[in-house]
């Protein structure tokens, strides 16, 4: 099988700091890949390169078998790479189907000449995509502000799917959600992969990642240090790889992590998922 997305030798520097260093990764159709690493490991920078927010200094991106330059976020969206950020970018004052069609509204002719919004069409199409993804919301005519966090996320995901997303990237999808909602989102990720849409998920909630991802890519200090099939590993091993107490497979960068590793281990084990965005990525 051919990978849908392949990044090769991606390097991204911010001044003297190398946030992503010679990174390789493949994502295959229908696969859920967990991208793991401590704060500042370079995960967010990597996905921002893939989603067009940053341009890499070095390296190549192949999408659907072709080498692709992703110049900006709109370009990424156009070729089918959708990123679901925590803020979700929904208009809270608009209803569900209006958000799904925002910017790409379906119009119909009124009295033969004026183009007006075709609410019936947008409502019916939105219902279809929500049904396809087995998402339940109280009503598609309800404003987004009346929905729960998980429902909002489901709306954002359905919008991506309706507009033909080929690859979904999710940054901390469960961080702000309650227990039941987390479960719903994870189920949704499983549904997506069963419909052959691959998902790249970043999360500090190892438990969540283990329950949906089939493969895990672990980064440390901008480098990929290990890759594991979820079935063949344990959370202990992964935490060890993340914090550096277990040496990586590809790069031996484990030299001075001893002083921080205990703290880091506790950080991950307690699932205190609300991480701060790595400072270095903002720059």
């Amino acid at each position, binding site marked *: 099988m051919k990978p849908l997305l392949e990044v090769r030798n991606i390097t991204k520097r911010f001044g003297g700091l190398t946030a992503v260093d010679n990174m390789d990764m493949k994502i295959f159709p229908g696969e859920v890949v967990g991208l793991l690493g401590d704060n500042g490991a370079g995960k967010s920078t990597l996905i921002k390169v893939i989603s067009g927010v940053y341009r890499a200094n070095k390296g190549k991106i192949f999408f659907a078998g072709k080498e692709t330059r992703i110049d900006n976020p709109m370009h990424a969206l156009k070729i089918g790479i959708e990123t679901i950020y925590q803020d979700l*970018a*929904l208009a809270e004052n608009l209803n569900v189907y*209006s958000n799904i069609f*925002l910017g*790409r509204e379906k119009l119909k002719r009124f009295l033969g000449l004026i*183009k007006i*919004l075709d609410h019936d069409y947008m409502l019916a199409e939105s219902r279809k995509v929500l049904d396809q993804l087995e998402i339940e919301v109280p009503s598609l005519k309800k404003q987004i502000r009346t929905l729960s966090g998980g429902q909002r996320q489901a709306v954002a995901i359905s919008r991506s799917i309706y507009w033909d997303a080929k690859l979904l990237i999710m940054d901390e999808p469960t961080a702000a959600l309650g227990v039941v909602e987390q479960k719903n989102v994870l189920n949704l990720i499983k549904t997506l992969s069963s419909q052959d849409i691959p998902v790249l998920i970043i999360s500090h909630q190892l438990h969540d990642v283990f329950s949906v991802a089939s493969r895990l890519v672990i980064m440390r200090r901008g480098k990929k240090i290990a890759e594991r099939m979820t079935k063949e590993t344990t959370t202990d091993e992964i935490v060890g790889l993340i914090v550096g107490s277990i040496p990586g497979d590809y790069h031996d960068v484990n030299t001075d992590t001893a002083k921080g590793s205990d703290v880091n281990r506790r950080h991950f084990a307690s699932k205190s998922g609300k991480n701060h965005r790595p400072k270095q990525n903002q720059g």
Partner: protein
Amino acid sequence: MMDKADFREILVILVKRWILIFLAIELVFFAVFGTNYLSLRNLQNILLTSTVVLLLATGQTFVIITGGIDLSVGFMVGFSGVICAKVMVSLQAAGISQSVAVSSGIAVALILGLLPGLINGLLVARLRVPPFIATFGMYGIAYGFAEIISNNVPIHNLPTLVSSIGHGYLIYWLPEKAFTFFKIPENLTRLELQNLVPIVPNVTVIAFIFVAIFAFILAKTRFGQHTYAIGGSVDAAERAGINVKRHLIKVYMISSFFASLAGVCYVLMFITGRAPAGSARLLDAVVAVVIGGASLYGGTGSIGGTIIGVLIIGVLQIGLVNLGVPTYNLYIAVGCILILAVLVDQFLPKLVHGKD
């Protein structure tokens, strides 16, 4: 028997419609305590007095929905009015026919009236100046230019055609005798002229045509939808591929277009161009939009609500005149209504939410 849930539901419906109920109470109050308050003449007076506020408030609704505000409209009325009057007077003095002079005056005022909106829009959208500051600056600039253009004195001696439009009515009706559009029926006796019933002022007709068109645009079209989306979340709008900057510029131009139209209507109604005209109507316009259900944080509001807001102020204004109460009391009343509107807005969500 009515149980508690039903009662609550009815209460929610009533509170949601509170502006309509408030308007109805006003009308009943003045009908009972005023003199001939519900006569056709008086009701048309309400429409006529409300015209300038209605136009300002319609443009303002678009701006407020995007989360901005346009303070420049107060003096835009004077600015475009003075331009309109000046062009008419100059062309008439040059011996050009009245119809050409009047239509040129209106056209020039409306076109030049777009300019302050364009500048407001560029400042807000491209240079990220807060709307309050950008339009407040324009408020002063428009006034200054209006005074320069008018040489500090009101412009009089407009073509007579102006008053026949501005003081004219859509329909003239003499029961069982005559029924004409726009023109007073010919060959009437003095008594018949006294009994002639004029229906709907021309100025109101002009205003309502534009208000209706833009109400349609806001409620039914993609442009309207994007206006709401920007008010809801600029990020979401941008991510959805909406050109937010260009959209905001258009919205500020709509507002200044309506302000210039209000200036033109002012000239038609009062047969003069004055620089300070309409400045006191700025407060009324903003209040009407807020009473009409728009949030100053953006994202909500409608032209229908704004129209009711305008009527609440107009009915009150004419009502106070009718009762012989000094009109400065209107400011107190309008201020109170504004605060009431904001309070209802704040507590309404709680009431509605409690139902779920």
